[in-house]
């Protein structure tokens, strides 16, 4: 039985204003949620990006997320120190800054910095070697980003190994 209250009887047309308004009301929250999942360099890009993307590099089958200041296509070294405060961390270094098994920036400004307007990038390992003290050094090439979903899958795969 249809409702006796004619104001509660509806035509499908009522969806039109409702959908428009609901979109306007929900967009800020959706944007907030998606931005919260984005890596730092993706936030505040012009034009804005919705889906979170994490740049990463691959080292010997292992996936490592990076926050790159890097122009796409340039070569970088990945250094994994086994002593000091950065022990076990993957550092992305300019090859020119790596001497004698240690990261020594030639100029302070050449250290890794976050450039927000640079594309988040993915890098491909093009060669690797292990130094004394089992410090790992990999030469990588920076490539275009992939979505975080792909990254998660890759991470799960490398964890399963």
């Amino acid at each position, binding site marked *: 039985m249809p*409702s*006796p*209250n*004619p*104001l*509660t*009887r*509806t035509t499908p047309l*009522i*969806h039109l*204003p*409702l959908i428009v*308004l*609901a979109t306007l*009301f*929900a*967009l*800020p*929250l959706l*944007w*907030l949620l998606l*931005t919260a999942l984005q890596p730092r360099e993706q936030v*505040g*890009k*012009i*034009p*804005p990006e919705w889906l979170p993307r994490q740049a990463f590099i691959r080292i010997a089958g292992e996936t490592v997320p990076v926050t790159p200041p890097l122009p796409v296509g340039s070569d970088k070294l990945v250094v994994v120190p086994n002593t000091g405060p950065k022990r076990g961390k993957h550092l992305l270094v300019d090859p020119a800054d790596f001497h004698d098994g240690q990261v020594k920036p030639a100029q302070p400004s050449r250290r890794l910095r976050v450039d927000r307007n640079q594309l988040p990038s993915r890098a491909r390992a093009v060669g690797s070697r292990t130094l004394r003290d089992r410090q790992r050094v990999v030469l990588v090439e920076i490539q275009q980003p992939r979505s975080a979903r792909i990254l998660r899958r890759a991470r799960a795969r490398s964890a399963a190994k």
Partner: protein
Amino acid sequence: MNSRARANRRNGLLFCLPWLIGLTVFLIYPLCAAFYYSLCDYSVLLPPVFIGFDNYLDLAQDPLFWQSLYNTAYFATGSVLLGLLVSLSLALLLNSKVKGLGLYRTVFFLPSLMPVVAGSILWMVMYNGQSGLINSGLRAIGISGPAWLADPTWAKPAIVIMAVWGAGNAMVIYLAGLQDVPSSLYEAAIIDGAGFFQRLVHVTLPMISPVIYFNVVLSIISGFQAFTQAFIMTGSTGAPERSTLFYVLNLYNVGFQDLRMGYASAMAWVLFIIILLLTFAATKLSQRFVTYDR
């Protein structure tokens, strides 16, 4: 019997005591103290010096006072009217058996659950002239948007729009009012040949007029007390060009930055009187429009 009645009264008073103490210590005493300080030159660091009504006389000469009063009146008017329009329209749209009703109601109500500080920061980022979501959206449809919070003419409308985003609270109250309207009235109206707009104007609106009155008074009060949005989004100076220097923000600056507590207390009392008068006016006006007939 007599002693029993006395014991009853004593017990009753004891039960009321926590509330009575709260009322006196946290409401009546501060109100009176604020009024006394409003008659003093008081910098917190030194004892108050009585100066009569000088603070109130100075207020009338203070351009910042008038600017902040104008800003607040602008915001309150905008947010009350737009908020009324949006929340009432939403409630009318949702007072039906449309599919996905629960989803719609949730979506419209959700923003009002967001804390003001979090919401302010979210909108601050979205209002950014270059990288903000809003201007990016406008650019996508070919409009170059203003700098919003950095533009003196658009900063206040921007804060009003943000306030309308939180209209879900009022919407829920309207919805409750709408569902209380007896359907027999609509049946009678239909038999009399009333169309949709006639039913809206002659049945729905009069029947929910107490709810409208309630919501309008509440939003006038909260509109005049607006502080957090401006404090978070544009800083305590009310930038740009003092266009978002709301009354309470100005009061806060005077009291806690300039340490002129006497002057700030006078401002607080003036605001109290303004809100009191507006509420009184709304009540007077409501006697002509609000019906409690059932």
